[in-house]
């Protein structure tokens, strides 16, 4: 790796650049480094604490190869809730990769052992410890980790192949960096549309924006209607304790919302009518006692507010998960998680996991298994490409448009107002969870106007560029989601249309979205990914 001075700018040359340091990015960096590549990983926050992985407790989808029916059963079970959009072949690959790779983290993660010293469980990891382990692993593998260094845009060669990225150092006053690389892995997470979902503030859909600017497409963006319960005003969207929850309205009447697949819908319905209160009194006493050592962060808000959640009722809300426990993301075009754009790979929540999750949330298992597997495949493929395609700054041009370079006369545009507009369309239960053609069209018009203002007038650099690019990514992601939801005139999995309440067998297709000034959505038959490595 060489460091080249470039005026004020920091320039690095690497074989592989990984953008985003959650579990997908860290597994991508691991795989690329194990292939012998020089890897740089840039992270908006800190690799270890930032993102959805770190604050969660990722339980991985897990089925051993033995007995042989274990995997077949897991896949059959998933297929039942994938509603025609999952692909068994991809599910099998993910189960296999997860099963093989996760135990290799043992030198860095203290997997729990039974009395005989045998590992009890490899699949359930605690977020902070998982990310701490992954960071140690990639540092030991020689990966250069740049924290507080968000990527703002990709860099491309004249033929469109991706050859690096540019961004800023937020702890050095926003000073610019540029990195040239033989291949780039985008692992910048998904987006909660800036809800208070735990750990999701940095996840503004930057990966979607940068990939689309490079020519990649989005898939499954209509599946963003995932919501998770949390104590009102808190971020604590950890679900386990709520498996035993009872809910009540302001008059103390119990709400009919039993633990099960349509619980979220029922709670959202109740929330539209007024505040709701939760009781965890049914949580078995032994679980109550062990809760702090199962999920140490869950009790923090209660303890600080002086609430005994097992004896007192407390107010709750539902936070939007967006694509983090939803589905959509950059369309995966090949088995190595190529995007169809030479030199650009995607992993984790940045990559659409429709192939594995189908139309239902992969929360609790599929999501992290996908992040690990896609990261591993993308990292390996990026390293292999870098062997053929040398990195260098010659002829690279910057692909970033909206938020950085105005198409019209520059004037101040408020990033905060753009973000608020996205929240106002993407969070309300009566807009994004219970959808109608009319409501979606209204959201589309509102967001189109916000986009147009940003695209025409926003121009920025240095520190100011971060907030504007985040706002741009959020608005773009919301527009792709709304347009895809408008096009899916049926109800399928987590996509619920009040005006089309049943499943339409003709719509067992993927919806491919793209475009900026004009957003387009087109159907695509499933099983359309190439079984071959991307020709890059």
């Amino acid at each position, binding site marked *: 790796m060489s460091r080249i001075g470039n005026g004020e700018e920091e320039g690095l040359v690497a074989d592989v650049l990984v953008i985003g340091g959650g579990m997908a990015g860290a597994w991508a960096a691991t795989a690329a480094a194990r292939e012998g590549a020089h890897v740089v990983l840039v992270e908006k926050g800190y690799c270890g604490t930032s993102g959805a992985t770190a*604050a969660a407790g990722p*339980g991985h989808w897990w089925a051993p190869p033995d007995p042989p029916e274990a995997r077949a059963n897991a896949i059959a079970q998933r297929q039942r809730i994938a509603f025609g959009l999952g692909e068994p072949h991809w599910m099998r690959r993910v189960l296999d990769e997860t099963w093989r790779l996760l135990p290799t983290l043992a030198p860095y993660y203290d997997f*729990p052992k039974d009395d005989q010293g045998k590992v009890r469980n490899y699949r359930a990891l605690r977020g902070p410890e998982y990310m701490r382990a992954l960071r140690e692993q990639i540092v030991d593998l020689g990966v250069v980790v740049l924290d507080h260094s968000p990527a703002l845009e990709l860099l491309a060669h004249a033929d469109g192949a991706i050859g690096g990225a540019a961004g800023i150092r937020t702890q050095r006053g926003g000073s610019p960096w540029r990195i040239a690389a033989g291949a780039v892995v985008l692992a910048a997470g998904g987006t909660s549309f800036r809800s208070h979902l735990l750990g999701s503030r940095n996840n503004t859909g930057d990966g979607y924006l940068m990939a689309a600017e490079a020519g990649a497409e989005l898939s499954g963006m209509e599946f963003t209607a995932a919501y998770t319960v949390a104590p009102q005003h808190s*971020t604590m969207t950890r679900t*386990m304790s709520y498996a035993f929850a009872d809910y009540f309205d302001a008059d103390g009447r119990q709400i009919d919302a039993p633990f099960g697949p349509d619980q979220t819908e029922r709670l959202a319905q109740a929330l539209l009518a007024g505040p709701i209160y939760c009781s965890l009194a049914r949580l078995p006493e032994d679980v109550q006692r062990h809760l702090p050592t199962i999920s140490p962060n869950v009790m923090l*808000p209660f303890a*600080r507010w002086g609430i005994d959640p097992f004896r007192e009722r407390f107010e709750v809300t539902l936070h939007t998960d967006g694509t983090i426990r939803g589905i959509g993301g950059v369309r995966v075009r090949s088995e190595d998680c190529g995007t169809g754009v030479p030199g650009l790979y995607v992993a984790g929540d940045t990559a659409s996991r429709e192939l594995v999750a189908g139309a239902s949330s992969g929360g609790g298992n599929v999501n992290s298994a996908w992040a690990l597997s896609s990261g591993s495949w993308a990292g390996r493929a990026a390293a292999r490409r870098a062997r053929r395609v040398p990195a260098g700054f010659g002829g690279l041009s910057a692909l970033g448009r909206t938020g950085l370079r105005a198409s019209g006369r520059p004037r101040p545009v408020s990033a905060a107002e753009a973000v608020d507009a996205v929240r106002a369309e993407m969070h309300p239960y009566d807009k994004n969870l219970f959808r109608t053609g009319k409501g979606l069209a209204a959201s589309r018009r509102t967001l189109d106007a916000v986009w147009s203002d940003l695209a025409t007038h926003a121009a920025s650099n240095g520190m100011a560029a971060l907030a504007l690019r985040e706002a741009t990514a959020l608005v773009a992601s919301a527009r792709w989601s709304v347009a895809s939801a408008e096009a899916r005139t049926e109800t399928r999995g987590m996509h619920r249309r009040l005006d089309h309440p049943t499943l339409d067998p003709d719509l067992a297709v993927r919806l491919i979205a793209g475009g900026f000034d004009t957003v387009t959505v087109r159907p695509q038959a499933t099983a359309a990914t190439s079984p071959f490595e991307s020709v890059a």
Partner: protein
Amino acid sequence: MIEFIVSERCTACDRCVEVCPSNVFEPMEAGPPVIARQDDCQTCFMCELYCTADALYVGPNAYHAEPADPAAVIASGLLGQYRRDSGWDEWQDHYPNEQWLMETVFRRAAEAAR
């Protein structure tokens, strides 16, 4: 969101500056860092987990600052709860990581709902 740093406990190691995912803290030439961008705090409690001096307090309200009295918080014993229950550092042998029990809890809930 982050409410205060207990200056008597803080060792000015600046670890919180490094690990905060949203760059809330600003290091100082001498002494404890300052909370420079409270509004950017995402209420993830990660700074507390990494603070071996238990000198940080993140309020549970992610929407609004909820000023808390440092003396009362110190007296309540709430500081360091996350790091302790996580079994980090000196707590390693006292608080085992029981994350693996989570799936058994979900299983019991599904059975109870049947």
